[in-house]
């Protein structure tokens, strides 16, 4: 069988996702033997033209030129795989989607007219059909390697969708929500990172995005019980994955003025003062 021809393309991002390739260290050399890395601007000046078997795309779509480019990449690639929070959720830069784009430009640049940027920062799935998505900011190297192995074996890549909590339990971490009263997003966040934050004795801030079917309302009520304001709860959801539908809606829910939710677990008179 001939080697897979792969490409890595960058859009608006911090470069962190492609660094997950470069940080494979010596395994990067093994990878370079097993696949043909045809186009990877950060790693090589040798740039091969498409078509590619697999294109990994990093970053979000945030300029008019980027819309054109992702369409071209789709045409040139048998499979397109979005990697990272920017690519799968619009990224932290989607925080601008909530504000006034013009005002942002003016706040940062003296001459905003020189800057060409779209009003919204959006994930690739808004613009093209994707073959797979690898979540996380940055995606986990273990998951990335697993995906590469699946691709080389010619099977559909599998990405688990359960919550961080399950990994925490398997690892034997002490629960920061229950034991320390920290507003941990682990119960509604997708697994993959290896439950890094609870291991570091801190709350998860949701950098792997929403888990399928997580109850963001109930968790918000639990945070109310910890003493967080609805505004603070809104901010928890409106963070790295602010534009992914589940967290987007959750943040809107907690933003609305007339929430009447009661804290969880419910507070009896005199208790927890």
């Amino acid at each position, binding site marked *: 069988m001939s080697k897979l021809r792969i490409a890595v393309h*960058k859009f*608006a*991002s*911090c*470069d*962190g*996702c*492609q*660094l*997950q390739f*470069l*940080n494979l*260290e*010596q395994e*990067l*050399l093994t990878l*370079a033997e097993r696949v043909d*890395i045809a186009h990877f*601007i*950060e*790693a*090589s*000046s*040798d*740039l091969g033209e498409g078509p590619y078997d697999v294109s990994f795309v990093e970053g979000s779509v*945030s*300029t008019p030129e*980027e819309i054109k480019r992702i369409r071209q990449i789709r045409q040139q690639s048998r499979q397109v795989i979005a990697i990272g929070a920017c690519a799968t959720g619009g990224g*932290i*830069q989607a*925080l*601008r989607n909530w*504000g006034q784009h013009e005002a*942002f*430009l003016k*706040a*940062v*640049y*003296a*001459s905003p007219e*020189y*800057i060409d*940027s779209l009003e919204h920062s959006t994930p690739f799935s808004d613009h093209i059909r994707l073959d797979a998505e690898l979540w996380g*900011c*940055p995606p*986990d190297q273990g998951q990335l390697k697993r995906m590469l192995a699946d691709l080389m074996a010619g099977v559909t890549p599998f990405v688990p969708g359960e919550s961080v909590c399950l990994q925490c339990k398997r690892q034997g971490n002490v629960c920061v929500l229950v034991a320390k009263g920290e507003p941990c997003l682990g119960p509604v966040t997708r697994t993959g*990172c*290896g439950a*890094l*934050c609870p*291991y*570091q*004795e*801190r709350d998860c*801030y949701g*950098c792997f995005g929403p888990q399928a079917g997580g109850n963001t309302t109930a968790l918000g009520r639990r945070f109310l019980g910890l003493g967080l304001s609805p505004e*603070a709860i809104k*901010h928890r959801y409106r*963070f*790295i994955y602010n534009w992914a539908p589940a967290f987007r809606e959750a943040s809107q829910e907690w933003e609305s003025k007339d929430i009447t939710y009661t804290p969880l677990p419910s507070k009896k008179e005199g208790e927890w003062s």
Partner: protein
Amino acid sequence: MNTRRIEVPVLTRVEGEGALYARIEKKQVTDLRLRIFEPPRFFEKFLQGRSWKEVPDIVARICGICPVAYQMSATHAIENAFKATITPEIRALRRLYYCGEWMESHSLHIHLLAAPDFLGYPSAMAMAKDHPEVVKRGMHLQGLGNRILKIFGGRPVNPVGVRVGGFYRAPSRQEARELLELLQSALPSAEALVRWTANLKLPEVNRPAPFVSLRHPNEYPMNEGRLVSSQGLNIGAAEFEHHMIEYQVPHSTALHAHLQGQPYWVGPLARLNNNLDRLPPETATLLQETGISWPSTNPYHSIIARALEVHLALLEAVHLLKHYHRPRQAYVAIEPRAGIGMAATEAPRGTLWHRYELDAEGFVRQARIVPPTSQNQAQMEADMRASILESLDFDDEALRLRLESGIRNYDPCISCSTHFLRLEIERA
């Protein structure tokens, strides 16, 4: 035909998207523009209204390659606004953390980005076919840096361990002991790396310009010190914005900066030049052996400066780990208060300055961040102009390579301000 137009679609092996355009008429450079078209990401705006607790997790995402620097400049600046004092133990841990980033980022730059230029390869992967031991050594050192970062924050990209006031968790004794062993055994590799870079065939050019870096009374600067220049500047971080003036140019999404109306340099070479007397003896000896007279005004010597800093960081990390006692708590309690705080630390690519204005509950009112790439941009352009004038006889291909490698030497992290450097040369 007397107009020549050369177009090179991408400048590769840098962080981020940019282009270089040059027009040469009658042996003069009539136009030169380093264009950075990394889409704007508005971080300073996103920070507004966020709590002090969220800042380290936000700023880490400005740059995948140097999150530690962002976290360190930010936490220092906020602590400064809150008038918080940290303990010597936390200070030592922060230095160890920073050593990890220097080792990782410098090793990555030396081997994956810069060195292939000097040996005639398109990539480290191609270089590895002929020089496997060199590339493996580099990746090993990069890996050790990553290992340090993983202990503090689980992963080298966007690590999760930092909070204002210190760290969420301190390394265990066991982790420290294992790390110490690994680092100690890598010292000969770091020495060999310095010698190897010093033996590379580097272009000989001379670019006198002010070097700017931090300077500390008794240590090689990482996260503290006064801002100095080779031409007499000596200021505290709070005075930065009165001396370093940022301005926007039409061709770039990254701002430029001037010091007293002039381009200036930040980065490993500037740091080394300004702090030759702060090197540990072992590193100083290695520096002498290079046979180069320091301070150096040859930007290509940056690769040697990076290798030296890998050595220095490794030594320092070994030293810190030998004296490591796990603190009971890895952070000091923080009381927010209204105020303005500023701090500069030495990112692998150079001085990184942050300023925060916070309200009484510790919400960010305003943030300003000046990354090394924008500080170096004016100097990069000046350097490229000089390089063209020196190399007018080169054919287009050779000239293009010279300019590309020249820019890579500054290691512009275009994402912190992205990844195409499109290069066009027009000759009339």
